[in-house]
C-alpha cells in the first residue's frame, strides 16, 4: 500500500511489571483521520509514543512512509521531524513566546532562515486562530490557547502525520471546544491524523475509523456509525455507555 503514512506492525511494549501494548498492528493512510479510544491505561499513549519513537517498542516494527523506524540504522531525529505530536499536558517551551515555540523547530531542526521560519510559523498560528497571541508567553495563555499553539508547533513542521495524545483531556470543559474546532479544521483540510481522545462527538464528526483499545490490545475497529449504532464487542459497548453516562461527551 503506497499511501500508508504511519504503521505499527505487531508492536509490543513490555515493562517490568506491566504489558502496555500486546501485538498491536495499525495503519494510517494518507489523509485519514483515525480516533483511538479506550479506558485509561489501555495503551493509547504508549502506542502514539511508539509510532513517534519517543519510546522504542520492545517487539515489533514501526514504519513511517515505508521506512522502518525500529531498525537500528533509522535516523530517528529526522523521522520525528516529520511526525507532529500534540501532548496531553501540552508541553510548550516555557521560555519562548507563542511564535518562538513554533519557529524553534523550523529554525533548529529544519534549518530555515529566520524570515522564512517566521512566515511559516505565522501561517500555522493563523490556522489555529492564534495569530493575535504570538507575543505571549505560554503562562500568559489559557489552556486552550496553549494547546492551539501546541498544534501550530506540530503543524508548522509540515508533518506527514500528526499524533494527538488526548489533546483536550487536561483542559476545562469550556476550553475544549476551541481546540476541537482547530482539529476539525485540520481534518477538513485532509491532514493525516491519529487521535487518542474520549471526545465522541468529535470522533463521530471527523473520524474515518475508530479504534477501540483495551488492556494493550486493539479490541474492535470500525466506522463511527458502526460504534454508535452497534458495536460488536461487549467491552466497547460498555465503555461507550459509560462515557455517555459520565457525561464525558455529548453523544
Amino acid at each position, binding site marked *: 500500500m503506497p499511501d500508508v503514512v504511519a504503521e505499527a506492525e505487531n508492536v509490543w511494549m513490555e515493562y517490568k511489571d506491566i504489558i502496555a501494548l500486546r501485538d498491536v498492528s495499525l495503519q494510517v493512510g494518507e489523509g485519514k483521520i483515525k480516533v483511538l479510544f479506550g479506558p485509561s491505561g489501555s495503551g493509547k499513549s504508549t502506542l502514539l509514543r511508539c509510532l*513517534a519513537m*519517543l519510546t522504542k517498542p520492545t517487539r515489533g516494527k514501526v514504519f513511517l512512509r515505508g521506512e522502518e523506524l525500529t531498525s537500528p540504522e533509522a535516523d530517528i531525529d529526522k523521522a520525528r521531524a516529520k511526525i507532529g505530536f500534540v501532548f496531553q499536558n501540552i508541553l510548550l*517551551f*516555557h521560555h519562548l513566546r507563542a511564535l518562538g515555540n513554533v519557529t524553534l*523547530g523550523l529554525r533548529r531542526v529544519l534549518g530555515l532562515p529566520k524570515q522564512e521560519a517566521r512566515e511559516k510559523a505565522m501561517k500555522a498560528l493563523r490556522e489555529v486562530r492564534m495569530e493575535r497571541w504570538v507575543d505571549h*508567553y*505560554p503562562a500568559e495563555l489559557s489552556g486552550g490557547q496553549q494547546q492551539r499553539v501546541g498544534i501550530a508547533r506540530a503543524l508548522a*513542521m509540515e508533518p506527514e502525520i500528526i499524533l494527538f495524545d488526548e489533546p483536550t483531556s487536561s483542559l476545562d470543559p469550556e476550553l475544549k471546544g476551541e481546540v476541537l474546532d482547530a482539529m476539525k479544521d485540520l481534518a477538513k483540510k485532509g491532514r493525516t491524523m491519529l487521535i487518542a481522545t474520549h471526545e465522541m462527538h468529535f470522533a463521530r464528526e471527523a473520524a474515518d475509523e475508530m479504534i477501540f483499545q483495551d488492556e494493550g490490545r486493539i479490541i474492535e475497529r470500525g466506522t463511527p456509525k458502526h460504534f454508535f449504532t452497534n458495536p460488536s464487542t461487549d467491552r466497547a459497548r460498555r465503555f461507550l455507555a459509560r462515557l455517555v453516562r459520565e457525561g464525558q461527551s455529548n453523544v
Partner: protein
Amino acid sequence: MYEFIPKYLPFFLKGLQHSFILALVPLALGFLVGLLAALADVYRGRTASTLISIYVEFFRGSPLIVQAILFYWFIPQDLLGMRIDRLMAALLVFTLNSGAYQKGYIKGAIEAVHEDQMTAARALGMSKLKAIRHVVLPQALRIVIPGWTNEYASMSKSTSAALAIGIPELANISMSVASWTFRSFETYTFTALLYFIWIFFSVKVLEMVYERVKIPGFEA
C-alpha cells in the same frame, strides 16, 4: 574614632581587589566546572555520576580554609615536590570548591525542566544536544539565578580563607592593620562594612538580572 582609616585606605582597597579576584575568577570558572559536571551527572551514565559525587563530596565535606592549605602546601610542595604560586593555588581550590556547589544548583535547575521539555524538543526532531542547548539550558540557567546568587554571596565571604596561605586579601589586610594600630574594633567593623557593601550591591544587581530574564509564570 575611625580617623586612622583614611591613612590605611590604600591597603584596604588593595585587599579588596585581591578578594574580588579570589571571588570572581572562581565563580566564573566554577560555573563552567559546575555546568559541565551537572550535564555529565544528568546525561552521562552512572560512572560519570559516581566520579562527580566523589568530587562534590570532597569539596563540600571539608572547610575551604583546610582545602586551601592542602592545595598550597601539602599537595604541591610535600607530595609533588614543586612550588606553586599562592594566588594560583587559591584560584584553583576556590574554583573547584565553587564548582562543586554550583553543580548542585545547576543540576537541580536542569532536573526541574528536563523531563517534559526534553520530550517536547525530541518530538520536534531535535537531537539530545540541540534540545539541551535550545530548550533545557535556556530555562535551567534562568531559574538557577537565585541559587547562584547565594553561591556568589557565600564565595565572596569565603575568600577570607586565602589568608591561611598568606594572600593579602581583605581579611588578611585588616588583621595586619589591627595589629599595627591596636584599633581592632574600628578595623574589623570597617572591614565588615566593606564586605557588606560589596555583597549587598552585587546581590541587588543579580536580583535585577533575574527579574529581567525570568520566564513569566515559570519560577522554580
